[in-house]
């Protein structure tokens, strides 16, 4: 089928401001949007710039705004979008070139929540024990691939880039509810600050955007609830 691709372009070395490039691509309905973007890059315009790697929704490189929604270009098929496809860089992060945004602010928020297991107790010679139920408690949030689809879909983040954002909260959730971790108090304190969880207005854009199907808004709500429970 013929597909009309409209791509938001910007090259800081040559462009004063962003512009829309239009490209016609022949594609199979079962092709990924990434395949169509590759066709443009490889055969029509080598200057088109994007990040990508695994091409099956695991590495998280090719998050972008596709027909107005944050998606991984490798995880959405042409047939699900039809013949008119609009592709833009993620919102809320500075554009470096075309579909490539600066991920450093996003990664800084991630680093702020102590994204590692803290357990200063002596390590046993074998594994620490954890029941199946304890392990299930944080299963959903271990799926996060840090693609930034959720955070850059969040109006609260667009309004205030200092807001730590859903991805960092998801990562915090993964440790706060891990029975082996001992830094839940510190993480909850970080998330209780003005740019923490209370900036979330439960708009659910993050949950809709997550390519891993994580219940992001629910994870944020669980943290809010945990704060309230512990305060009383």
């Amino acid at each position, binding site marked *: 089928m013929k597909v009309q691709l409209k791509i938001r372009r910007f090259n800081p070395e040559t462009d004063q401001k962003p512009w829309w490039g239009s490209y016609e691509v022949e594609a199979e309905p*079962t092709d990924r949007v990434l395949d169509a973007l590759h066709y443009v*890059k*490889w055969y029509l315009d080598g200057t088109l*710039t994007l990040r990508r*790697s695994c091409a*099956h929704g695991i*590495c998280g490189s090719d998050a972008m705004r596709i027909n107005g929604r944050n998606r991984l270009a490798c995880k959405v098929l042409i047939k699900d979008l039809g013949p008119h496809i609009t592709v833009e860089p993620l919102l809320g992060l500075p554009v470096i070139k075309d579909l490539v945004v600066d991920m450093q602010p996003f990664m800084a928020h991630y680093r702020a929540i102590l994204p590692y*297991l803290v357990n200063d107790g002596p390590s046993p010679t074998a*594994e620490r024990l954890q029941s199946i139920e304890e392990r299930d408690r944080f299963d959903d949030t271990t799926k996060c691939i840090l693609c930034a689809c959720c955070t850059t879909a969040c109006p609260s983040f667009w309004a205030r880039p200092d807001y730590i954002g859903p991805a960092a909260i998801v990562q915090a959730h993964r440790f706060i509810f891990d029975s082996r971790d001992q830094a839940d108090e510190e993480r909850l304190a970080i998330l209780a600050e003005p740019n923490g969880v209370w900036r979330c207005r439960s708009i659910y854009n993050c949950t809709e955007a997550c390519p891993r199907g994580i219940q992001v808004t629910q994870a944020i709500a669980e943290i809010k609830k945990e704060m309230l429970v512990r305060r009383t």
Partner: protein
Amino acid sequence: MIHKYDAVIVGAGGAGLSAALQAAQHLRVAVLSKMYPVRSHTGTAQGGVCAALGNHEEDSPEWHTFDTIKGSDYLADQDAVKIMCYEAVDSVYELEHMGLPFNRTEDGRIAQRPFGGHTNNVTKQPVRRACYAADRTGHMILQTLYQQCIKHNVTFLDEYQVIDLLVEEGRTRGVVALEIATGDLHVFHAKAVMFATGGWGKVWQITSNAHSLTGDGPAIAMRRGIPLEDMEFFQFHPTGIYRLGILITEGVRGEGGVLINKDGERFMERYAPTIKDLASRDVISRAIYLEIRAGRGIDGKDYVYLDVRPETVNKYFDLDGKKNPDGTPRRITPADIEAKLPDIADFTRTYLGIDPVSQPIPVQPTAHYAMGGIPTDTWGRVLLDGVKTVLPGFYAAGEVACVSVHGANRLGTNSLLDILVFGKRAGIDMVRYCKESDFAPLPKEPEAFARQQLEALRSRPVGSERMADIRRQLQQTMMDHVGIFREGPGIQQAVDTIAELQARYQQTGIQDKGRCFNTDLLEAWELGGLLDIAQATAVAALNRTESRGGHYREDYPKRDDQQWLKHSLIFRNNGKLELRYKPVTILDYPPTERVY
């Protein structure tokens, strides 16, 4: 710009991060990666990492060692395999202590599942050895190691593409890297350099590998006179999603899934009567091709079904007499599939519109893993010849390296183990080396060779041909002639085609002439490496006139220990390739016939 670090690690997958965790405690270390570390291909590994914990049933590192050597078709170096399989147990516990969320048994221990080629050496039946976190074990390993690196303040330089290795007068002096965002070249002056750059599946058309897996590390090393070992051995994983090549973990068969031909027959019974669908990967990939050749592919096409529907699985559990530890018949439910294989279900639903609970999955073999690579000893030190001469200060670990623990065919899960064990050992030895050594001075104009390569690509006029055409032809040629089945004239044709493509590559330009985030330039540069790697692979494959593990010659269908129980080393001198050989280290397990 010149930077100075004790050690530079190139690549931020499991091997690079494992090394960084060791080295950064004692040295000034920088980790350079062409992507953000969490994008690394370790993250796509699915099924598990093997260690003989024995959490469900009796197991031992000794059995793991034997299985790995048998799986390798006796080409693995047995000293290295022994180290890996015995250190596996502590490596997995260490990951758990770092926070890795393994699935759990009823009594709270790490859960384990069966995997291809891993057996109880007494009963010969599959053993539960693969420690797993659903079907995203690699994702959890990558995340956990990266988390620990953050905790330990490891320095990362993200989106730096290493272009050249600085070696002079037999000593390592650093690397030259392109900062992708700015197009600036940076010189990293270092005592030690480690390559952990991963594999090169992009040499083939159908592959499970990421677009990033273009063999940059070995291509750079070969240009600097360092040999590559066992390049003819590349693994085709039996179950890639039809046409896309996306990996469907062996864990599906570990949970009971079976391969089915168009007659509805579970054909692995004929090829591997004892462990059937859990035979090693080379055996199963060949069996699938033979079924297809015999006209028994689905609809006569070039794929078969992987069937994990509960009714199918439970039927074969009964036929095989599979029991739970308490003696009740083993069963799988739709809920088990959702819980233990959620990503697989997601892939088949997304890309095929197929629900694995109610429909079989169309699969075909997919280029998956490089057994060969940069030769190293068991401390990750790069070796220059067949008599263990070390290149001081240069290290490699993970898929890019050839220790060799995988020999002619790797067992499933052993790649994750390899990156943990040998990544860590390389890190430990870099600390020792850097404490004992001074900085060797930088060469004059250290960035000259890197700049020359990039400027040559940038300055060539854009002709009628595209880099993408060359890449596509390369991948097709390698698929057709240097794939699962090979024979002399076909491989020779591939060698000739590659030479022609290399010549055309020299005439082909790129469109993006800019500096900022120029991926047109980087893809073109990567293609140069892919061509070199493909050439080394084809030449090594042509020379080895036997069949062993992943290298199957239809014109030489038998393993020939008399002539070929040896590793190949391929050198590139002034554009010409030269092959030499070195012996295999055999300790406790002399080669015998390999039957599953």
